[in-house]
């Protein structure tokens, strides 16, 4: 997994609430058996007409937002389906961070598995950063310091669980981390088999 340390880049404003994963990547693109190549379908139905032409009014079809690496969005971003194709599509497009007041749980989790940082901030902060994004101010997200730097150098501190932060900073592979506990997993199974043998028959 790609490490996440400091990200400085263009932020695309998406002032919508409840952006669901069906919007982020519609189901017709879930038929892939790969993780890559989904960026061109990101927000497909909002970004393109049924004939495949760009809709000029959609933010990611405008300059400089075509090159955005951050999305600033309304409440409850990433709700709905568990599809990890949503973070894959974001990442493939070049998005490394999202800023919102809240996220759906599964999407939030999926971001961390792919080196994307979902930053959670209070409503006023998200509104200010949304305004910065509209004014094409570049944002800086520093995971080490746990802060976002917006227009006029204003900083916004954010919270993140220490374990997730560490995995992202170091780009750690969690399966490898868990496999260190193989003996404990085996011991758990032995104990459970004794008390609930039917789970193993």
């Amino acid at each position, binding site marked *: 997994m790609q490490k996440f340390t400091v990200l400085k880049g263009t932020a695309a404003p998406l002032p919508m609430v409840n952006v669901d994963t069906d919007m982020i990547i519609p*189901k017709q693109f879930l038929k892939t058996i790969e993780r890559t190549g989904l960026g061109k379908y990101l927000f497909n139905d909002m970004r393109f007409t049924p004939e495949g032409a760009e809709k000029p009014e959609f933010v990611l079809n405008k300059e400089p937002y075509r090159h955005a690496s951050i999305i600033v969005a309304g409440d409850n971003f990433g709700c709905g389906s568990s599809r990890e194709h949503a973070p894959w599509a974001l990442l493939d497009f070049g998005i490394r961070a999202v800023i919102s007041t809240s996220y759906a*749980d599964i999407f939030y989790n999926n971001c961390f598995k792919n080196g994307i940082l979902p930053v959670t901030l209070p409503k006023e902060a998200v509104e200010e950063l949304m305004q910065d994004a509209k004014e094409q101010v570049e944002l800086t997200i520093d995971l080490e310091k746990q802060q976002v730097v917006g227009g006029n150098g204003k900083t916004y501190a954010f919270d993140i669980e220490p374990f997730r932060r560490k995995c992202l900073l170091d780009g750690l592979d969690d399966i490898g981390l868990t496999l260190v*506990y193989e003996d404990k*997993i085996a011991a758990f199974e032995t104990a459970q088999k004794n008390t609930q043998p039917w789970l193993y028959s």
Partner: protein
Amino acid sequence: MTAPRTLFQKIWDSHVVSSNDDGTCILYIDRHLVHEVTSPQAFEGLRMTGRKVHRPQATLAVADHNVPTSHDRAKGIADPESRLQVDTLTKNVKEFGITYFDMNDKRQGIVHIIGPEQGMTQPGMTIVCGDSHTSTHGAFGALAFGIGTSEVEHVLATQTLQQKAAKSMRITVKGDLHPGVTAKDVVLAIIGAIGTAGGTGHVVEYAGEAIRGLSMEGRMTVCNMTIEAGARAGLIAPDETTFAYLKGRPMAPQGEDFDKAVAYWKTLVSDEGATYDKEVVLNAADIAPQVTWGTSPETVAPITGTVPDPASVEDEGKKSAMLRALDYMGLQAGMKLTDVKIDKVFIGSCTNGRIEDLRAAAAVAKGRKVAGGVYAMIVPGSGLVKAQAEEEGLDKVFIEAGFDWREPGCSMCLAMNADKLEPGERCASTSNRNFEGRQGRGGRTHLMSPAMAAAAAVTGRLTDVREL
């Protein structure tokens, strides 16, 4: 004396393998369900790292999202991408030694229907699947939640997940439901009350007479849609209804083991005095049959109501979402919901594709005809549901009424196969999501119960089933 614990805490505590200072745990996973859409990259990851499946016997795989539901499906899948995805699963389960119900197995069906049907889903278990509606299995008092593909790989490789305990929430539905009001109406009313993010970060435990009075099928409908309220999982403490449902199912404990299991399952209730981070109480008597009018499951109203007016909403974000939804849905504020005409009807999905759902729809369809110009399809949730319905003669009732009786699968719940809405088409659907484009680009979805969907089919408009 130990502090009183909730059901969620009990299940959680009994599955912690190891825990970190910040509360992140390695949580043991008892059962893992796998389908074709969210697993290929996980198996590929195992291959690339040379890892094996830790406990293949704890895993069950099925193809459901991409499978055709037409009568000639034994001929195979026409769409090359869908076919590749199903073939990839077939190859992966063979390589990694996982039990698999292929497309033509009579036990095949939607992943969340077959787990319970086979007795794989049991109280007290931790169950995951790369699918958000894994919350369905919570109806048995199992901690069941959806995961992403990276986590699917993690579970395959280690039979565990790295997780932090969610917060707890109790939703109590007091009293008895009115006749004609079903589990689907209950859960839609709950989502309407708390919103699509009302449960975020929480595991919901359902309680109250109205919940206790539900069959297992109804409980599954409620837990299924818990994810639409943003919650990680839904839970209903197991009771005699649960035990009776499980007894004799192929993957349930057998003989003496069953009695031992029941003795354990009976301990799976929240202790007296256990506290929750959030409590919500609804009165069953206040719940009428529900339909959605917008593009999020929280945009729901009683069928006796009207399309709401965005002008009456203060919050700017909500107002613009509402305006967008009404425009997408082609509806005007203030119009009566019963005046909304429909083009298609979809009865099925992991929310409402079980035998009881088909019985409820058949009871309405019996002796009536699908309205002119309406296409109505019934897609049983599994091959076994289909067989049971045919044994009861429900297929004949539907066919005589003019419904299309199809093969099992996810079908028009998400339209990954050939079943989809055309732009602008309006559908009465028993599925769980009315997002833009969910049932086909430009398609308009109204969520409701099977009886309500059948009522819409025969009148050609949204209808209060109680008035038929």
